[in-house]
């Protein structure tokens, strides 16, 4: 008989990634609604006592899989050990991160477990003892509600980063830890040959709270220095429209839109972006949207909270000075 909620955390380079606490918090909420316990699975290397901290977010017990072979995420080492534990645990609901690795992991794990999976969910709820999940499709042009077939356990969902409310950590609560035995047979599995970190510890667009984005109106790669400066002041990541990327002005990893990153920051500042449908799809779930564009007819203005109709080369330097003033006074 399936029981409980299990969240699969993401551990990288000595700490749990923020999304782990978001899904633990969401898992707690669902477990309470179901009247079931909340447990977690932590895979990685040198997790040590950190797993007990998941208790701060309401996790009761953590099954820790700690081994050198689990240092970096690889489907071939992660999936078999996770599937074995989950088969024994037999949870009703499994939550996992819709991060880059989480998306990869969850699909293979779901196929191994024969579970129904809803990916990149932005809202979860319990109805009649069963999960219902809302997730974007067409990069957010539409949303779909997913339901699981009767008796189809586990119900598996991945959660989009930056969307689920994270509980305020209660440091007095610690999770019980059970070290699970891991036998990872090293064979001819896929190997991690190299990990090259992005320069300057760049914020990933999908996890950034603020994004400053530039389009064709930026006129050339050199002018993005202005956006970089603004981004640094307000702790933002820099994005780009498809035409800026196609022109070779910005790396492809910065592309926002239906064939790029779909983003949900608190603030999205679009500079010199007219607002093609495929771009709007990728950013219109942002909480606040600002556009700076000299064309008052640009479609982007239909999506903004605050619009500035002006030449960005005239406006941005003045705006940056104002931001500096603000930052120096608070």
């Amino acid at each position, binding site marked *: 008989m399936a029981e409980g909620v299990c969240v699969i955390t993401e551990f990288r380079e000595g700490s749990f990634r923020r999304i782990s606490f978001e899904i633990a918090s969401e898992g707690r909420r669902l477990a309470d609604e179901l009247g079931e316990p909340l447990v977690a699975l932590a895979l990685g290397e040198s997790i040590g006592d950190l797993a007990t901290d998941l208790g701060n977010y309401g996790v009761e017990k953590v099954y820790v899989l700690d081994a050198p072979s689990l240092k970096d995420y690889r489907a071939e080492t992660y999936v078999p050990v996770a599937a074995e534990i989950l088969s024994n645990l037999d949870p009703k609901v499994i939550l996992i991160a819709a991060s880059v690795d989480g998306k990869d992991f969850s699909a293979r794990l*779901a196929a191994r477990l024969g579970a129904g999976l809803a990916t990149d969910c932005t809202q979860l709820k319990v109805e009649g003892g069963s999960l219902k999940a809302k997730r974007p499709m067409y990069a957010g*042009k539409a949303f779909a509600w997913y339901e699981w077939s009767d008796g189809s356990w586990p119900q598996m969902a991945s959660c989009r980063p930056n969307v689920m409310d994270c509980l305020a950590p209660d440091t007095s609560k610690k999770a019980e830890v059970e070290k699970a035995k891991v036998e990872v047979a090293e064979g001819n*599995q896929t190997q991690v040959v190299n990990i090259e970190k992005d320069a300057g*510890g760049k914020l990933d667009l999908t996890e950034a709270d603020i994004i400053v984005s530039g389009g064709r109106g930026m006129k050339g790669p050199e002018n993005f220095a202005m956006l970089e400066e603004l981004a640094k002041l307000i702790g933002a990541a820099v994005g780009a429209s498809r035409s800026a990327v196609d022109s070779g002005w910005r790396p492809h990893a910065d592309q926002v839109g239906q064939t790029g990153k779909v983003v949900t920051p608190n603030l999205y500042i679009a500079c010199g972006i007219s607002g093609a449908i495929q771009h709007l799809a990728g950013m219109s779930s942002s*909480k*606040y949207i600002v556009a700076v564009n000299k064309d008052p007819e640009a479609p982007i203005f239909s999506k903004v909270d605050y*619009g500035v109709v002006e030449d960005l080369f005239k406006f941005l330097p003045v705006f940056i000075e104002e931001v500096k003033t603000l930052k120096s006074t608070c």
Partner: protein
Amino acid sequence: MNIVVLLKQVPDTETKIRIGGDGKTIDTSDIKWIMNPYDEYAVEAALRLQESAGAKVTILSMGPERVVESIRTALAMGADQGVLVNDPGTEGSDALGKAKVLAAVLKNLEFDLVCCGHRAVDDDENQVGIMVAELLGIPHLGLAISVELGDGKIRIVRPIEGARVTLEGTLPALVTFGGAHAVWNPRYASLPGIMKAKKKPLETKTIADLGLSPDEVGMQAAKVKITAMELPAERQAGRVLEGETSDKAKELVRLLHEEAKVI
């Protein structure tokens, strides 16, 4: 060497999405159908390997008759042959159901490498390709922005948050493709290519041909299903700031700091 590319046909990315009469699918009238852009990158990568390693490239897809056009486009780009599973019994399949169908075709094909987009830009599920690899019991390497072959090994670069990971696996394997148009610059079909594509073999199969029973796929086998669709809430028309440049800059800083509280 044999490469199979999994291809999905999707609505053009410039499509405005409307919900259909049943409330749980989209209205497909007036939609321009295209090859899923990430699958197009997979086709391009496969064709480059076809040239460098002398591979034979097969396009595999599922869906109704209209999908033939996208397969023919891939054949016109240079792929050698196509297979389409066209069976109404596959309708309503969830990701695992679709993966079962594709894996069943692959089990009867010779392949060293399977290529596909990391996601289709309609459902955005990020599932089917990887599930195919699991069902076939072969490794998958996900989200490639570059791919190299040599000595029975395959090496890809995979961007994750804040880093790029280089992975090396053993063939046979499945690779899912990421990146962007600017990374792969997929070739256009040439006029001679289009003419040749008309004569290239394109086989159509049904579920029965694949030895699958009707209750293994489609709606009845689906573990998850869409029960409702909705459009995002329309954003309220925002405020256009007025005045001199410096007034607007001051006002925007004030709004973002005091009203929105985001800076």
